[in-house]
């Protein structure tokens, strides 16, 4: 593993979401009131688990047809991308976890009980893979539906896919969400819009692939995820 990052610059301004987040009441009861404390980064920050695939099964990439012959309801899509570091180097062996609502906007989760949108018996909606040598990953799934958040003000989450990425260092750990381009709900979403810089929000948007490139089996989306971390000596 010659490509392990050993330099972690602070988050560039405008990338991390504003906290507490306007319009998202939960952040006002959960976000620390005290400013985070600056500390010297140590070995615990530059290291992380590299062989988690022994601990966490990393073989679940087909969410759309978990049962042969009984596909999930919804628009079949393939999401493919690469996990990169800030130098653009592929992060191989990263653990990528994905979870999402079904096409009706309902999660297969005991806590999603606020409305009676239907569950799909053929859709659980979570998967986990490990990136290949090029940092690549891919999932077959269905496009998630939008759903309302039970807050006082009307707030609909746009279709989105949750990603959790465990990279080569504690400081490269990332939990994020992927959004679909051109969705009318995107600019009204308090979570998406919590990211101040438009260029940084662009990072959260998948790219729709031209159908001619993908074929008639499913719609294709490309989504690269950039983890923090660089080489102390930049590549030439």
């Amino acid at each position: 593993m010659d490509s392990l990052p050993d330099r972690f610059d602070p988050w560039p301004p405008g990338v991390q979401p504003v906290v507490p987040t306007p319009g998202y009441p939960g952040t006002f009861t959960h976000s620390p009131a005290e400013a985070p404390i600056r500390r010297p980064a140590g070995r615990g920050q530059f290291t992380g688990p590299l062989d988690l695939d022994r601990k966490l099964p990393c073989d679940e990439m087909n969410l759309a047809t978990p049962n042969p012959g009984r596909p999930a309801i919804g628009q079949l899509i393939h999401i493919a991308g690469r996990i990169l570091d800030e130098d653009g180097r592929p992060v191989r062996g990263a653990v990528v976890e994905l979870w999402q609502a079904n096409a009706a906007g309902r999660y297969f989760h005991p806590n999603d009980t606020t409305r009676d949108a239907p569950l799909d018996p053929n859709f659980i909606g979570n998967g986990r893979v490990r990136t290949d040598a090029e940092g690549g990953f891919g999932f077959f799934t269905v496009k998630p539906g939008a759903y309302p958040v039970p807050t006082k003000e009307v707030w609909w989450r746009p279709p989105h896919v949750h990603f959790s990425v465990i990279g080569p260092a504690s400081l490269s750990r990332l939990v994020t969400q992927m959004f679909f381009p051109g969705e009318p709900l995107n600019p009204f979403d308090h979570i998406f819009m919590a990211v101040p810089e438009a260029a940084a929000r662009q990072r959260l948007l998948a790219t729709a692939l031209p159908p001619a490139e993908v074929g008639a089996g499913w719609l294709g989306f490309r989504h690269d995820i950039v983890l923090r971390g660089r080489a102390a000596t930049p590549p030439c």
Partner: protein
Amino acid sequence: MLKPNAPLLPTPSQTIGPFFPQTFFQAGDNDLTRVSAAAAPSTRGERILLRGVVRREGGIPCVNAILEAWQADAAGRFRHPKDPECALADPDFLGWGRAWTDAAGGYEFHTLLPGGFTDAAGPRAPHIELAVMASGLMRTLFTTVFFPDFPGPNEADPVLAAVPAARRPLLLAQPDGEAAGCRAFRFDLQLRGGAETPFFVE
């Protein structure tokens, strides 16, 4: 056009939300002493239990918060190439675990008492790194658990020293009796307000 060596903009954090799949967890995910579910636990060190409750403003328990622990082995080594003594690290110790909080906000990790080491920051007291993710948290929170067994090394630890003296005790796990034949320690997290847990710059 990107300049040569210009960094890519990192992907922003977003909340883990309330629906991180419970099906992602299997028995033993919160056991740092096993490299896989089927593996035998490492015995190279003192087995301990680390447990506590995660609370938000007003002392209300956080349900379905996700905690991830990462630590050196009992001799203070990480099984990672950025540790110069990586080759000597305990091959049976994973050093990573994940737990989610129950309806009362409770979590627990099974692990070994970590060893101290010296790194670029200075002489490090034995500690466990914790990452906290939850609905209502748009950014992952990072904190560090220290142990009351090591008053001297704690005094010299540069990360503990970066915390205002009045808040340092909040980063010390408290002896919490015995459980399953090993010492238990309690580390409660208060995300906001009151005796707020010190969190570090990401």
